[in-house]
């Protein structure tokens, strides 16, 4: 088992109390698996039913496989403009 670093921003960083999370990852894990793991952490109340996740700077679907070398981020509701 390896770990992946998940970047946090804005309201999510405040709720989880930091700018990154280290999440254990089984081989072949998906974005959905990752979100499931994150939901068990304190602060996860802030997450909507289907939070947006970016992998390597692109929005990813829940069935996309992720590994420890990927750049992963949880994306709060965006509010640019």
């Amino acid at each position, binding site marked *: 088992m390896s770990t992946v670093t998940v*970047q946090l*921003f*804005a*309201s999510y960083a*405040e709720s989880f109390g930091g700018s990154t999370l280290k999440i254990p990852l089984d081989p072949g894990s998906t974005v959905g698996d990752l979100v499931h793991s994150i939901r068990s952490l304190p602060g996860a109340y802030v997450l*909507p039913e289907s939070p947006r996740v*970016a992998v390597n*700077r*692109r*929005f990813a679907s829940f069935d996309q496989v992720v590994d420890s070398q990927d750049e992963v*981020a949880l*994306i*709060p*509701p*965006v*509010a*640019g*403009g």
Partner: protein
Amino acid sequence: MRRSAIVTREIDPAALMAEVQSTEFGAISLFAGTVRDTNDGRSVTAIDYSAYTSMAESELERILAEAQDRFGVMAIVVEHRVGGLALGDVSVAIVAAHVHRAPALDCTRFVIEEIKKRVPIWKREHYADGGREWVDPTASGVATT
């Protein structure tokens, strides 16, 4: 040509227009988003913008590429500012140039709407009552610019 950037300095819309100026164009459309003094019934005093900068720049570039394909605009430039902004400050500016007005106008509208959907930028409003909150357009359903 196209250029996009996340910036920490003031945005100068006139400079962006000058950047795309050419006698081959008959239209340059400019959209500028500015910080206003109320939102959802609360008095706003300032806004902090933050971004996942590397992804925001990638996503802006993808939006501009899509916009050029879709509207055939010959030149398009976007800047979005992050950091602490005061009332009236320009938070985002988009210029699009085309031979004719319709594609230029449609292009700026497309780009700002896509920015609001998919560019990882966030804003925290400061209120006159001393409170501050992250703006969540998905929660309130209230348009914020």
